[in-house]
Structures are given as structure tokens and as C-alpha cells.
């Protein structure tokens, strides 16, 4: 669906952000794009959505170059940026003006999402709190039913019940053709929503595996304070350690996305080694 081939990008007068980056996104999957601040998550979203042009390489959506911003591509894309400013109009008016551009826009889903996230679409959007605005835009984004949905830090600014409500809403949707990419550094918020983990560091993809692959190759085990010998990465928790270990059949797997993220950032070679049959 989306192919990034040998993407190189740098801001004016800056260090290169991406150098020969390759990434492929498939329909029906929800990708978690994780990374530290400044890793290039937002820039990558802007390149995928055709809002930034790579210096070298190509990003294509169903084999069409995205930087050309063809309406057919744009009508299959919706992006919720981390920081956004919505026009000064009511939510209903925004929907009336923008929904016609999306061929599969689902009005019922829009109403359901607004109701579950408790957003009043009669009010002027620009006068709502940032969290309310975000919930409105997320509702609209889900209702567009585009093939590609990019969510940049979707839960930033949302209160705890709304985060939970959003997760439930997203999980309840049947979206076999949709590819959703969620970028975040708040990994705990979205751990239950994704089925593929991609970790970006210093403009490089450090880790890129589905949850199925992760469960086939790694075990997340809570242990006593003393570290067993084959621990790849460990973090102290109350009463012991939470560890990442090579896959152990029959062991109780207590997956923790934050632990995986920290492990990959600290020990990328050791963790990736497990996916290559334990060889360096």
C-alpha cells in the first residue's frame, strides 16, 4: 500500500534526518510508530502524506507518488497532526464542508464517535478546549474510512476516560482495508491498539516487527530480583525485574510495549538478533 524507498531527507542547513530509509505499510494493520522526541516521527508522517518532499527516494501509495498530491490519494488519506488549528466554524459545518471529499464517509460512525467521546458538534470548534478539538478531529478521521490513517500523538491532550474511550472505539471498528499508523512516545497509551511495532531512532528504523513475530521470538517475564543469565534487557519493578528474554515456550508472557521500546533503544542489536535466529 505505502512504500518508502530509499528516502533521504534533511531540513535546510540541517543534519540529514533520514538516509536511505525503507518502510512498507500493509492494509488492515495498525502500526505503532514509536520513537524518542526528535526521532523524525512527525517528519516521516509529513513525507508519507505528501506534505514534505524527500531529497532522494520515493514514497508511493498504491504505486502513485504521494508528493504529487493527487486527489485520489488525498481522498484515501487522513492525518491527525499533533498540533493543529481547526477553522472557526461549528463541528457540523466542518463536517458538511469536508466530508464530501471522502467517498466512504460514514455519518453514523461520526455521530457515534462524537457521542462516545462526548463532543458537541454544534459548538464552534475553535472555541473548544484542545482535548475536545482533538476528539472531534479523531471522530472525523475515523468516519472518513480512508485507506490510510495517520495519527500523530493522538492521545496527547486527552483526559484519561477519553483515552480509554478512544481505544475502545478504534478497537471496535471493522477496518480490513485500512492501514492505521499511530505515532507516539506515550507507549503505554496505545499498547493495546497496535499489531505492529516500528521503532525509529535518529532517522533510522531500529525495529520493525508484528506482534505475532515479537511473541514468537521474545518473552516478557517478571522475575525475582536476581537476573537470570539470558536476559536481554531488564527493568526494575516493584518486587523484582521485568525482563525481555529469548522466547521461552510455556513461560507466562507479560508483554509490555514500554519495556520493549526501552529495550530496543538500549539494546537494539541484542533484540534484533533474536529475529535473525539468534545470529549476529
Amino acid at each position, binding site marked *: 500500500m505505502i512504500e518508502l524507498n530509499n528516502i533521504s531527507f534533511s531540513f535546510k542547513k540541517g543534519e540529514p534526518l533520514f538516509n536511505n530509509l525503507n518502510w512498507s505499510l500493509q492494509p488492515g494493520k495498525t502500526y505503532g510508530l514509536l520513537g524518542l522526541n526528535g526521532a523524525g516521527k512527525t517528519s516521516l508522517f509529513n513525507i508519507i502524506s505528501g506534505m514534505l518532499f524527500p531529497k532522494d527516494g520515493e514514497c508511493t501509495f498504491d504505486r502513485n507518488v504521494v508528493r504529487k498530491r493527487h486527489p*485520489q490519494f488525498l481522498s484515501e488519506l487522513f492525518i491527525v497532526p499533533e498540533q493543529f*488549528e481547526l*477553522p472557526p466554524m461549528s463541528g457540523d459545518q466542518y463536517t458538511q464542508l469536508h466530508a464530501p*471529499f471522502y467517498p*466512504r464517509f460514514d455519518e453514523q460512525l461520526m455521530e457515534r464517535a462524537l457521542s462516545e467521546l462526548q463532543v458537541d458538534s454544534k459548538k464552534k470548534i475553535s472555541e473548544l478546549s484542545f482535548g475536545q478539538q482533538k476528539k472531534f478531529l479523531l471522530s472525523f478521521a475515523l468516519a472518513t474510512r480512508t485507506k490510510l490513517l495517520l495519527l500523530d500523538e493522538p492521545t496527547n491532550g486527552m483526559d484519561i476516560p477519553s483515552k480509554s474511550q478512544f481505544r475502545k472505539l478504534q478497537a471496535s471498528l471493522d477496518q480490513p482495508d485500512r492501514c492505521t499508523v499511530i505515532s507516539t512516545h506515550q507507549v503505554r497509551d496505545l499498547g493495546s491498539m497496535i499489531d505492529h511495532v516500528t521503532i525509529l531512532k535518529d532517522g533510522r528504523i531500529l525495529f520493525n516487527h508484528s506482534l505475532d513475530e515479537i511473541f514468537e521470538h521474545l518473552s516478557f517475564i517478571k522475575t525475582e530480583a536476581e537476573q537470570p543469565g539470558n536476559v536481554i534487557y531488564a527493568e526494575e519493578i516493584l518486587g523484582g525485574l521485568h525482563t525481555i528474554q529469548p522466547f521461552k515456550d510455556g513461560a507466562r508472557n507479560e508483554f509490555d510495549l514500554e519495556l520493549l521500546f526501552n529495550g530496543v533503544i538500549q539494546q537494539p542489536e541484542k533484540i534484533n538478533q533474536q529475529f535473525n535466529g539468534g545470529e549476529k
Partner: protein
Amino acid sequence: MKTINQVDGFSKERFLQVVKRFWVLNQKKWLIGFAGGVGILILIYLLNSTQPTGYGNSGYAVLGVGLTLYKFGGYFLTSGIFNELGKKSSASQMLTLPASTLEKFLAGWFLTYFLYTIVVMGLLYLIGLFLEVNPILTTPPFSESTVDASDFYFLDTLLTYTALHSVFFLGSIYFDGNHFLKTLLAIVLFFIGLGIISVIFTILIANDFNFSYQFVHSPENMLFSVVFGKIAVAALFLFLSYRQLQNRQIA
């Protein structure tokens, strides 16, 4: 809700939806601008009609100021048409709006040039009818020389707006903020630069000065140069605006 059938090439439906969107986003500013313009014209009329110079002069004054407001009001409103692009927080709304660059470009041009000119000229025409003085837009009962001069003034106003509108249109896409002031400054600096170059050029080839002067100031050439020059400027800047919109990236 009716959705737009996404087709290859230019789509009238998408174009009209973008026009509608631009209108809704800018309607408050535009309506305030129109109301302010009408208010100024009423004030000019009232001030002039109390003067001993007579009724006819009020009409002239009102329409003269009206044409000036048409130009500068238009430049100001044109400057803001793509202001979403100037901010990182709002650029995605315009850049990822599912319409082609040509449709977005034409929608902006249609509103700020075509529709704006028809509405304002229509309004000035009505004001002229009301004041029973319309030397600019209708055939007036004046001497031939006055009619010619008025017609030229009207045409010149329209051509000047056509040319400078395209410059402000480019400014609205190119600059990230304060579009009107930055474009105005760019125009002023351009003319200062042009003046300096002209002076240097004149000094360097002083012998040819008389020839150039005579060429430009013969009446046929002057009219042709003005009309052609302004249309050429408009075409050039509209082309540059389209290219800029096509290559515009998030701020």
C-alpha cells in the same frame, strides 16, 4: 450526505466544494470588508454633497474612491486566501484537502479575482445608478474626451488590479505570515530596485535616452505597453503562484 465522485483530471464538483470552503472560511472578513467599504463610500458621499461644488462631484468622488477601495480591498483579501499554508498547525488542512492543486488554485483565483470583481463592480454600478452619475461603467452624457478618459481610467483600474492581484496571490502562497505587508514591501523594494537600475542604465547609455523616451511616450505604444505589460505580469505571477502551490510544503 452527498460525496464527490473522485475522478482523474479536473473535477467541477471538487472545485465548487473548495470554493465553498474558501468562502465559509473567509466570509466574516469579506463581509466586514464590504460593509466597511460601503460605509466609507456613504461617508464620502455625505461629505461631498454638503460641499458647494454640487451633486455631480459627489458621484465622481464616490466612484473614484470606490475603485481605489476595489483595488486595495482586493489585494488585502487576496493576501489572506491561502493563509492556512503559512502555519504548521493549519497547513495540513489545505495541503491534504482532497482536491488537485489546479482546483485549489482556481478556486482561490475565482473568489478573489473573478467573483470579487463582479460583485464590487456590480455594487459600484448600482451606486452609480443611484447617484445618477456613472462615467465609468455606463455610457454617460458627457463630452467625448471625458468618456475616453473615464473608459481608460476604468480599464486601467481593472488591468492594474489584474496585475497586482496576481502578485498578492503569489504572496498569499509564498509567505508564512503578514502576507499583505510582506507582499507590499516586496513590491516597493522591487520598484526601488527598478528605479535604481533605470537611473544607472540611463546614465550609462545617456545617448539613447531620447529614443527610449519617445518610444514609450507615443500614445499608441503607451496604451499597448500598459495593457500588454499588465496582462503579462498577471500571467507570469499566476503561473508562479500555481508552481508555488504545487511545490508548497508544510511550514
